[in-house]
């Protein structure tokens, strides 16, 4: 498996494939239910004016999440 970085470390405008996810915690279950699963490709669209939260594109729609959650999600840059 290629190098992974935290989702929060992705450059704005770039795509990545989601690789690893914390198993527990209500936030992460909801993120999966919103379609963020290992193997899902996503794109970091922008950050809010104050740098947090992040806006990502996943499965054709837009989702925001805070850096604190994005820190725990590992992605592999590239894809699409």
């Amino acid at each position, binding site marked *: 498996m290629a190098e992974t970085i935290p989702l929060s470390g992705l450059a704005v405008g770039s795509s990545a494939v989601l690789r*690893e996810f914390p198993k527990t915690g*209500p936030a992460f*279950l*909801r993120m999966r239910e919103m379609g963020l699963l290992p193997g899902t490709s996503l794109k970091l669209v922008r950050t809010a004016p104050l740098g947090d939260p992040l806006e990502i594109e996943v*499965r054709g729609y837009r989702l*925001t999440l805070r850096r604190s959650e994005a820190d725990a999600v590992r992605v592999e840059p590239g894809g699409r």
Partner: protein
Amino acid sequence: MSMSLPSHLGETVRNSPVPARHTPTYALVGNPNCGKSTLFNALTGLKQKVGNYPGVTVEKKVGTAYSQHGQPITIVDLPGAYSLAARSPDEAVTRDVLLGRRADTTAPDRILCIVDATNLERNLYLVHQIMDLGRPVILVLNMMDLAAKARLHISIDKLEKELGIPVIPCEASQGKGLIELKVAMSRSDLPLPRHSWTIPAPIAPAVSELQASLVDHSRKSALSARAEALLLLTDQDSVRVAGSTPLDARTLGILHTWQKRWESEGTDWAGSLVSSRYEAIGRLCAEVVRAGSADRSAANVSDRIDEVVTHPVWGWAILGVIMVALFVSIFTFAEYPMTWIDDHVASLSDWVKGVMPEGDLRDLITDGAIAGVGGVVVFLPQILILFFFIGLLESTGYMARAAFIMDRLMSKVGLNGKSFIPLLSSHACAIPGIMATRTIEDPKDRLVTILVAPLMSCSARLPVYLLMIAALVPNDRVPVMTKVGIMFGLYGVGYFGVFGFAWLFKRTLFKGPPPVMIMELPPYRMPRMRDVLMHMVERGGLFLKRAGTLILAISIMLWFLAAYPKAHDGATPQEQMTHSFAGKAGHALEPLIKPLGFDWQIGIGLVASFAAREVFVSTMGVVFNAQDTGEESTPLRQALLAAKWPDGRQLFTPLTCVSLMLFYVFAMQCISTIVIVKRETNSWRWPLFQLGYMTSTAWIVSFLVYQGGRALGF
């Protein structure tokens, strides 16, 4: 990380037609932002009843649609949900109604699922859970026009064939597809979904065991027990709400045993369930959706708007302009109807005074009942205007952007971006502000927002501030900017209170993991005026119905306290006021408020303020016997400046004025707010807590300022 999903465990549910009752009941379910309310409004028109689910502050909407043959069809509009593993009270109600866990609502026999055709995969996740329930389902593909624009070709025939249920393409906002939908809804032979998917192998035995236990102990049907068993596995830390039947102990025991076992084995049970659902959905979408050449023009328009709206400079400017517009319109547009209401209430009561003989009954009708009704109705313009704006901001999609921009700031005190609009609205009036907190999903965030909202300086405090500023700084000698400066200072102290207490409550009373902010940013859409107006009217009606009667009763009681016991015949209003229960209360309060620099006469004003803060001004007018009682009027100002303590010291010294203004910044002196908080939190506990913490803060702040000022020689 990969998951292997053996296929031999797949289970298939066979079709079996369900006989229709005379008036079938449908539950309408769907993700937020998929056009569910628009469809509900289009199907039921004005035949809607809005109430609350008992014990929770979640809206219960039931409407009646008519089939092509005029047969009534009942539709229960369930709150928008992304999943049945609930994360908010709204989603919990949706889950509980569908699973038949709520005693107050019979489980609907058929389900109408609406999905956004432009966002099929994620929308189908909820549909996938719902198809487990073993009840007939109709799938509505909404926003087909937008899907066509995005060059998404969805094969309705294939989808119907794969799922085994009617699939109706629709454009709810244009009324397209409604006839076909009504025809499908009145079918008597609605099929069950053909729903086959693979439960991950490590979990399958647990699902069977939980299912068997639910059938035995909770008397569920086999299919609905299986659906519930599946849900229990992803539902472990989800939201519970009042009115929901708890799980039986046996089943709970089985669940815990399995969870312990999986934990020790390192099995990601919830995750693998979600993954296998998405795999099934992915296969289905690959089958039925053909994406054309990637011309995502609709998405591009949204993106271009967002480039500006969430821009580091323009984003703030736009947010500022929208908020100022919201604010100014609440203040100015509400002004005319409010004056109109006040005038008509006054002339109505004059008319009654003219036709009825003088006496207690006449006073009860005019000063108690009519004034009380006026006091309730006068809130309506602000509530309607605020909810018109909120409806507009929500239906265009801007509301989510405002939360996106503000989240970072609000998170500093432990709240999230969604608290921003309700708090800002509280500048006009805490009542609509508190009613607007329903957009906040997280129950703790919502409660904290409600608790601190009345600290935002509202429009009812303005007359009090103006009167005190007038008493503090004479018009002729001080530049206007000084007054403006004092006013800003008072608003600033209010903000300090809001954020300070929010921070404090989040660290003490509502400790816990920081709330998450996982929010969809829906594409921008043209607002639907009909939906916005219906929402606005519904809010106004709810206010009148839920809070109106109680506020009215309390207003009459407050009138009684000021009118009784009667002073001697021919007593002046001043003599009557000082002789009344309110006057006695002022006297009784004096030892408590003397350290703040207030005497018993100010005490009467504090008591009277509970009807509404601005009543302080007119009460002071009566108590100090001023003829003209406008807040900046010279006679009242002079009457105040002439007021003395019994020992001859001046009563309204600058220090007392400052102390009194600060008291009004913090004190909870508004019966209507207390009533609304009771309605919105479903208990007296929180409004009483709010009354306690705000009023004691007011006392402490005024005490420190007054005594500190005295010590410093002011």
